[in-house]
């Protein structure tokens, strides 16, 4: 199979699973050709190997599937346009089973066995938190796409960076002003009673207070709960907005029972798309969400005023108007998060070009080049929108979308400013030694 055949693009525009991953790079394509002598022509044509720590199995598999597709699409595009410093990218996938201990082992494997240039792509926070010390120990750059506050908190290390997706603290702060101005100032929080819910609770309360609002009640729900009606009487009658961040299989039940409890009235609803990522918004049980609002990292549904670069991103990744696979309308994407893979790969590309990256000996320079970045303009490389990167805390900040459920689709009604989400850095990784 020659290089051209391996880069086959399906007639419908969707790229295939194998087009970018594994040796879809130029050099790998040549390697399959008879008589090819590995990297015979020049050292500079050797691929840049990126270890993709993917949640292929375990509870993150639904996200892993889409992270893999977006990674394939971005790598193919980068390689088609000449690669990085003239070298193609090659992705090596290792499944971490969405498991903390395995995640750490996978990072070690990437560094010691696969000899990759860097590790990338981890989503689930518990895996990132467990694997980052290994990346630091082995001094290998670790570009995560995790959304957690753990990177910005300063608790990771110099090698752990999150330049492609905002953290939950910024997201929560971003939406608070709009909620206070448009939905109401008296907010009741309904959240699962563990770290994820606590983050929202702890980040949102000061943010809404700063906007003149008030959290008038907090309703923690035990994580194993599957019936919610008995918790709803805890929601005060004078609540303007219910801020809900339920996750897990019982989300649909939660919404259905909320609808049954409030009937046609009730307070405004504001949620995070994390609750319904990869779930069809038209699913039975979700009718009560009509008219309610959600945070989205990037719109699931194609918007009327979609910029050309965002449309191009959607087409390349292979999602349709509804945010589902162009090949499979039932396969709803994780659109609110997966753009982070695309953008992180482009940040890696830019940092490698800025640092003149040649190989593992330049890993520290690569991190320094990433830290030196400040702004990412919206465009093909950053289809979600413009961003500001804070090298001190290794965290990017972005505009966020607030979308309303209208007749079975999510329409963006407001884009926050980048500044809405920014906060005072609590750490400075640049002062740490390599």
């Amino acid at each position, binding site marked *: 199979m020659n290089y051209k*055949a391996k880069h086959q693009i399906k007639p419908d525009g969707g790229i*295939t699973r194998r087009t970018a991953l594994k040796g879809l790079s130029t050099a790998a394509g040549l390697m399959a050709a008879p008589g090819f002598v590995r990297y015979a022509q020049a050292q500079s044509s050797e691929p840049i190997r990126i270890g993709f720590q993917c949640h292929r199995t375990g509870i993150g598999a639904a996200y892993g599937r889409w992270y893999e597709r977006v990674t394939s699409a971005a790598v193919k595009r980068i390689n088609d346009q000449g690669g990085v410093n003239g070298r193609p990218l090659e992705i090596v*996938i290792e499944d971490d*089973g969405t498991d903390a201990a395995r995640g750490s082992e996978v990072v070690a494997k990437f560094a010691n066995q696969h000899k990759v240039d860097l590790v990338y792509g981890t989503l689930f926070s*518990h895996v990132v938190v467990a694997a980052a010390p290994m990346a630091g120990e082995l001094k290998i750059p670790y570009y995560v796409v995790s959304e957690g506050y753990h990177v910005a908190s300063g608790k990771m290390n110099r090698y752990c960076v999150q330049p492609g997706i905002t953290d939950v603290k910024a997201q929560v702060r971003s939406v608070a002003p709009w909620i206070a101005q448009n939905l109401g100032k008296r907010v009741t929080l309904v959240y699962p009673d563990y770290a*994820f819910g606590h983050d929202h609770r702890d980040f949102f309360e000061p943010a809404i207070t700063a906007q003149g609002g008030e959290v008038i009640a907090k309703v923690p729900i035990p994580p*194993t709960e599957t019936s919610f009606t008995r918790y709803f009487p805890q929601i005060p009658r004078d609540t303007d907005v219910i801020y809900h961040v339920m996750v897990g299989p019982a989300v649909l039940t939660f919404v259905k029972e909320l609808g049954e409890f409030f009937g046609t009235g009730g307070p405004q609803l504001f949620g995070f798309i994390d609750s319904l990522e990869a779930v069809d918004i038209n699913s039975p049980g979700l009718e009560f969400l009509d008219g309610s609002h959600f945070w989205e990292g990037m719109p699931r549904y194609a918007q009327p005023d979609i910029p050309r670069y965002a449309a191009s991103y959607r087409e390349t990744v292979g999602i349709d108007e509804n945010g589902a696979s162009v090949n499979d309308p039932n396969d709803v994407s994780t659109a609110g998060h997966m753009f982070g893979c695309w953008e992180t790969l482009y940040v890696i590309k830019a940092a490698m070009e800025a640092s003149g990256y040649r190989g593992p000996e330049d890993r520290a320079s690569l991190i320094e080049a990433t830290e030196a970045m400040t702004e990412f303009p919206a465009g093909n490389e950053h289809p979600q929108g413009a961003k500001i990167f804070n090298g001190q805390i290794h965290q990017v900040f972005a505009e966020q979308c607030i979308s309303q459920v209208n007749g079975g689709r999510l329409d963006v009604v407001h884009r926050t400013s980048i500044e809405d989400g920014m906060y005072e850095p609590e750490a400075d990784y640049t002062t740490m030694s390599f």
Partner: protein
Amino acid sequence: MIRRFDRAKHHRSSLWALVTLAAMPPALLALCGPAFAHASERGHVLLLPTQYYVLGGALAVAASFLVLIFLPPQALARLGTRRMRIAVLPFDGRATVSFFSFLIFAALIYAGVSGSRDPLANPLPLTVWTLLWVGLTLMQGLFGNLWAWLNPWYGPWRFFVRLGGPEKGWFRLPKALGYRPAVLLLFCFAWFELIYIAPDDPQHLAAAALAYWLFTFAGMCMFGHPSWASRMEFLSVCVGMISRLSVLEARCTERGFSLSTCLPGGKLTDTRPLPLSGVAFLLLALASVSFDGFMRTFFWLGAIGINPLEFPGRSSVVTENTMGLAGTFLVLGAAFTLATWAGDRLAGGQNWNRAAGLLVWSIVPIALAYHFSHYLTALLVDGQYALAAASDPFFRGWNLFGTAMAHVQAGIVLGAHSAWVIWNAQAAAIIGGHVLAVVIAHTIAYRLYGSGRRAALSQLPMAVLMIGYTVFGLWLLSTPTAG
């Protein structure tokens, strides 16, 4: 040397991983923030009126037991023995097919070691877990003992015999061992599948599969293929037992293989009693697939102190799940023992061992129904990945069968409509499997106790167990799960 150095470094790294994990302050773990617990397809099932299915299933199994009391048992027994010959295969192609299968196995091991690191692109884990363990087991239940042809040992063993190796081996397996080694091996297999932290890892799986192939082949050479395959090789034992449910029967005659059709489960009603180790083997097979569902439930995770919305991964629950797997086997074993012992007493029987050894065959349709229900979605999606991987087994950009570029249609199991269809298929299988089990158990009981009345009496406790297991099976498929 370089390789050894790297490995040592890797081991140090692994050790470091465990040390850092253990030393990680709780405050840092609390920073986990977003956990992305996916709403998952179980969310749609939670909205379905599954409680009516559970009630209906229990009633259907109870009703089938009551109906059997009034049916003439002789007629049932005759139906079970009825055969209709359909063809005679005038040749024995087992050695050829098996040798071909061995070559594929060797290629798969090579792919596991040198192919893609992605378990959804490497054909080894997809073949072992999806095509073999899920697909082949179901085919065995429907069409008979295909594994007798497809196993990767028989062909090489025949070759070994042709080279002068003794057909019956040099040693004899002690009869007293029964199925005990197979029980142990099945437990190890179930542990590797359900509890080991990386059963899908192509290299880990290649090492395990190769070690098992070598162990088994050595055993077959030393003790002879027939005795090793029928009592030691757990996969042959397991799918061989499952195949007794099938609607096809092949008997070895002078003219070749005589193929007949029979009613589903017909072959189970006139089979020989299993020794207690064989009883344990079948119960372990059912216990392992039951625990596969149970270990993902909120109920179990809550019981072992794990928040199901931020499931930390397999490595965190190795001890608990090992105990859980063993516990499920013990509980099921105790329930079966109690039911058959009480039934034997009620019917005035004198030989509980024989009763248990015969009645355990009625577990087969339940085990197959559980297998179908629990692995249906995996079969539908991972089966597509397997097709894609088959076209490019060594990850070199090949497209041998034109399937390498196929987009995997994960949507086939996604969304409310699919959830409804799949739930109904699962529920039908669970209920149907238990009804068939009641019929088979009743027929066996008639054979055991000689009269319809005594058979019905003996089956009272078993009927209660079957109803309970129907409810448990449907609950497993409808209760919230992690992932």
